[in-house]
């Protein structure tokens, strides 16, 4: 494999890098909550519901460009979040399977609606597979403003987000980030830094998670330029790589709780 130095250009990688950091700013603290609630696939479900909202909006004849689409996506995501917050109160023990069911319903519901709207398919893809390299600075301004508002809100509530507030914030953050960087990177940004620092507590955990996330994005972008590989996919791998390497740092690893012996799947002894 030949190394490719011409892609290593700050004006090419810069906007993508800033987009990654904006996404990380909200997703690292949200990811901590997602992990502790054990509902890791909620981002896929919310993104899919936002996509369904866009298809529905087109179906009803709303213009496919501009803010109307964003409002439709956010409204659908918030409605989905409301539904999930209600099921969380009503059947907390079934929240994860309900999220999964909602995900497949939203995805296939989109296909059913598109059967009569032949041009909608491309827009569904546009919404779900944002490509981090196509991001431009002007596009980042609304996302950055939204992140500041969301972070300010989390700070005011001192990180304690319950029920509807958590689901609502989460829906808005995901709807914005999926369009910027795509669903794979959103999932990785949420889960990987939070997972890598699962054993730590307090402010140190947040800092470590941010460092892992930022290193993952920067390393991924640089390597994708040098190795000439698709950026989004490679960043997912460098995020995971940074998370693994972080386990070599005693402070990250130290406070992992000792695991009990795994439970037997089949109770053969008894």
């Amino acid at each position, binding site marked *: 494999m030949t190394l*490719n130095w*011409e*892609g*290593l*250009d700050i*004006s*090419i*990688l810069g*906007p993508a890098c800033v987009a990654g950091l904006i996404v990380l700013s909200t997703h690292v603290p949200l990811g901590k909550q997602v992990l502790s609630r054990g509902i890791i696939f909620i981002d896929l479900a919310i993104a899919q519901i936002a996509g369904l909202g866009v298809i529905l909006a087109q179906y009803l004849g709303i213009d496919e460009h501009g803010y109307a689409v964003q409002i439709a996506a956010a409204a659908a995501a918030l409605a989905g979040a409301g539904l999930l917050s209600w099921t969380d109160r009503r059947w907390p023990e079934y929240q994860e399977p309900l999220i999964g069911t909602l995900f497949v319903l939203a995805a296939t519901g989109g*296909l059913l609606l*598109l*059967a009569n*709207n*032949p*041009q909608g*398919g*491309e827009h*569904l*893809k*546009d919404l779900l597979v944002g*490509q*981090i*390299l*196509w991001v*431009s600075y002007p596009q980042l301004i609304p996302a950055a403003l939204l992140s500041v508002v969301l972070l300010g809100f989390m700070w005011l509530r001192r990180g304690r987000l319950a029920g509807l507030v958590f689901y609502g914030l989460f829906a808005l953050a995901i709807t914005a980030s999926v369009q910027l960087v795509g669903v794979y990177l959103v999932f990785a940004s949420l889960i990987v830094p939070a997972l890598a620092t699962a054993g730590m507590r307090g402010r140190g955990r947040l800092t470590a998670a941010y460092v892992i996330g930022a290193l993952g994005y920067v390393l991924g*972008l640089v390597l*994708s*330029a040098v190795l*000439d*590989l*698709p*950026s*989004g*996919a490679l960043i997912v791998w460098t995020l995971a790589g940074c998370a693994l390497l972080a386990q070599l740092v005693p402070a990250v690893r130290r406070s992992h709780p000792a695991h009990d012996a795994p439970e037997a799947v089949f109770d053969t002894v008894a």
Partner: protein
Amino acid sequence: MKLFAIPTLLLTAALVSSPAQAKMKVFACEPEWGSLVHELAGDKVDVNVGTSALQDVHVIEAKPSLIAQVRAADLVVCTGAELEVGWLPMLIRQSGNAKVAPGAPGSFMAASQVKLLEKPTALDRANGDVHPDGNPHINLDPRRIYVVAKALDARLAQLDPANAAAYQQRLADFNTRWLAAMNKWKAEAAPLRGRKVVVHHISWVYLWDWLGMDQIGALEPKPGVPPTAAHMSSLIATTKSNNTLAIVRAAYQDTKPADWLSDRTGVPAVTLPYTVGGDAQSKDLFGMFDSTIAKLLGASQSGAAK
């Protein structure tokens, strides 16, 4: 005075000759245009090709090198007519290269050079996957490639006048070989005239138009949306009752739908290269049409043997 004369002379020589030494850089969106640029310009230009035959040109994975290549390009050669609408506008915007912006001399759209088929008279969403400019898949018609070659050659000469004579000579050479090949293909493909085909997606109209073949159905009339059961059952009936030659798919497409229909109708499924690099034989535009016609003739022989 003499002391300065030699360096000045060398400097002047370097300045004058540097445009000729710095090769023009061309970015081609698809392999067929990369191959055509190679035919017309040879080693006078450096060509980068953005997509391969084994990927769907409607979507690409964004790599930093693509942006860098477009940034450095003096000329971008693409199909146009909305074929690359999902990524080319973003790529050009991110490159910030005004030389290749839409409408600039460095932007060459092949589909704008020829008459397009399936141009809708009225834009109506009910008609399915409508490209407002017409069907963009012109690379499968040698007659249109002939027209595109002439326009592309003029553009190369306009942007790189120092090599204009070389481009003109190469065009004349290409035209001679291309017209001879077209005559050969036409003769070989005579048994295919009037035969009927079912396609995976409607990207072959120009090939059928050239060969005088009829497309009687499509497996995936709307891209990205699975076909309905009613559509499939009527497609089976149409395929069976029309003495269909083959079910045609491109090298980059999933093999399952065409195999499914082939199993139910006994009509052979044929994978055509679709563009340069689509199979081992399709090393250039000539090889691509050689292989396409050979494979269609192969299907007609295997059909006759049954």
